[in-house]
């Protein structure tokens, strides 16, 4: 069983990919194709995680930070778009790097949706928050991110980018209504939500940044985590 597992999985993936492609071409039905492409986008980083040699301490650290991000979403459930998740993901990536940031964002989205409801939007949120972490990790050594206003600006921009990525998901479901008018309406309708997300990112980052970065740096140094 163990020997044929990977060939079987690859064959299954190709089969579903072919189904998705023919569904998109034949019936102009893009839901399956979009999900297949998203999973393909998420796969490489999860594969890297499987390949990498990780200490148990590092695995547990990733889980703790992802869980903190997921928990932080629950008290704000009543306020749409006000979630400290992005702030926590950015701060974790700032200290532990791009790959860790991606994993924390993606896993936090997956797990917190167990409480909020899973749906076709889950992979999109995993992707969006994963990208928040990935970019924060990439840019962490630039002079821009090293300054506090730069970090806050980064959070502000991602508040909008996050909403724009999630809007694509809404648009894909309505291929026949697809027009500049629909795009404008969807993006205009989400503007206030995106603005709320962006501002809440700035607020949470400004509250959390000093203390959390110090604590996380300390843990990283003391235990030699994710170097």
């Amino acid at each position: 069983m163990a020997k044929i597992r990977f060939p079987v999985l690859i064959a299954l993936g190709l089969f579903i990919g072919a189904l998705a492609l023919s569904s998109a071409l034949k019936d102009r039905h893009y839901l399956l194709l979009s999900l297949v492409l998203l999973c393909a986008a998420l796969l490489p980083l999860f594969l890297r995680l499987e390949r990498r040699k990780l200490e148990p301490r590092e695995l547990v650290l990733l889980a703790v930070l992802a869980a903190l991000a997921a928990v932080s979403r629950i008290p704000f459930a009543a306020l749409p778009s006000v979630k400290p998740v992005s702030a926590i993901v950015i701060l974790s990536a700032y200290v532990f790097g791009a790959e860790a940031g991606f994993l924390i964002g993606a896993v936090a989205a997956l797990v917190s949706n167990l409480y909020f409801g899973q749906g076709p939007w889950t992979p999109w949120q995993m992707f969006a928050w994963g990208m928040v972490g990935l970019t924060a990790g990439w840019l962490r050594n630039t002079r821009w991110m090293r300054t506090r206003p730069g970090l806050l600006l980064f959070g502000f921009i991602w508040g909008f980018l996050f909403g724009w990525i999630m809007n694509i998901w809404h648009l894909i479901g309505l291929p026949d209504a697809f027009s500049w008018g629909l795009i404008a309406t969807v993006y205009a309708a989400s503007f206030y939500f995106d603005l709320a997300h962006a501002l809440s990112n700035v607020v949470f980052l400004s509250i959390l940044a000093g203390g959390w970065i110090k604590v996380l740096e300390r843990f990283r140094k003391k235990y030699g985590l994710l170097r």
Partner: protein
Amino acid sequence: MSGFRSMHPSVAVVYYAGLLLFTLLLFHPVFLLTEIAALLGLMLLQGQGRRIAGSLAFCLIVAVPAALLNPLFSHRGAVILFYFMDQPITLEAVLYGLMMMVVLISVFVIFLSYNYTVTPDKFMYLFASTAPKSALITLMTLRFVPLFQRRLRRIALIQGARGVSVREGSLRSRMSDGMTLLKTLLTWSLEEALQTADSMKARGYGIRRRTSYAVYRLDRRDIRVLAGLGAGALGTLWGWFQGYGMLMLYPRLKPPVFTWQEAAMYAAFCLFAALPLWVEGKEKWLWRSSARKSLPSAIQGKKGLHWTGYRSQ
């Protein structure tokens, strides 16, 4: 655990993965509504009515906009219902939007039922050998969420005695108090988690491939249900390749004609979607008839007692 939940994890995963695939492939209200009905029936038989009611509102908030937006922006179709701000609203576009809403609701219901049936230990059993680290991280995160909620409540209680509280004071002091609580949670959880990690390492985590003790055995009932699911899935896919199971809305709504091929495909789909309902219902029925004194023979006379499952006895 009894009924569908007591079956082998692979049965549940084949079922839910297949349903998800068909939801995204087939575009036909009859198929999707059958699927939703089968899943809701399964959940009601499992006593999950309250869960459904609890999460319905969120589901509708996400799904309803799709139904509203489509007719406003898509003007394809032949039957014009009325004009809204000088824009024709066509019957086809309204139906398309409604279909999209039904697709979203079915995906939502699939995951609702999945979460109840595929418990974390089953998830771990299935994925621990394929993707051990990702599965472990996901599971640990899952386990930490309720733990951290409890911890946060304890921290708030204790800090409340010192006057650190998010409930009183100016906005500024409440925010800094909230930050104190979160920082305490962070340091506490990290310290504790690193100890857990050390004890994992002391017990040899990561030295070799992960082995796992599994209580699951693929018995005859599981194989029979898997065969049924496979037959249903093949029949449905065959129909899809023939072009059935797709509601033609554009350029104009075609009156649905149910040919016998399409009926055969629908039967196959019903077999696939309703098999767990059948398993669950049969077990419920056997249990009730065995409890009735007047029908002691109802269960004893039956050959092949494995249908009730040794795990549920």
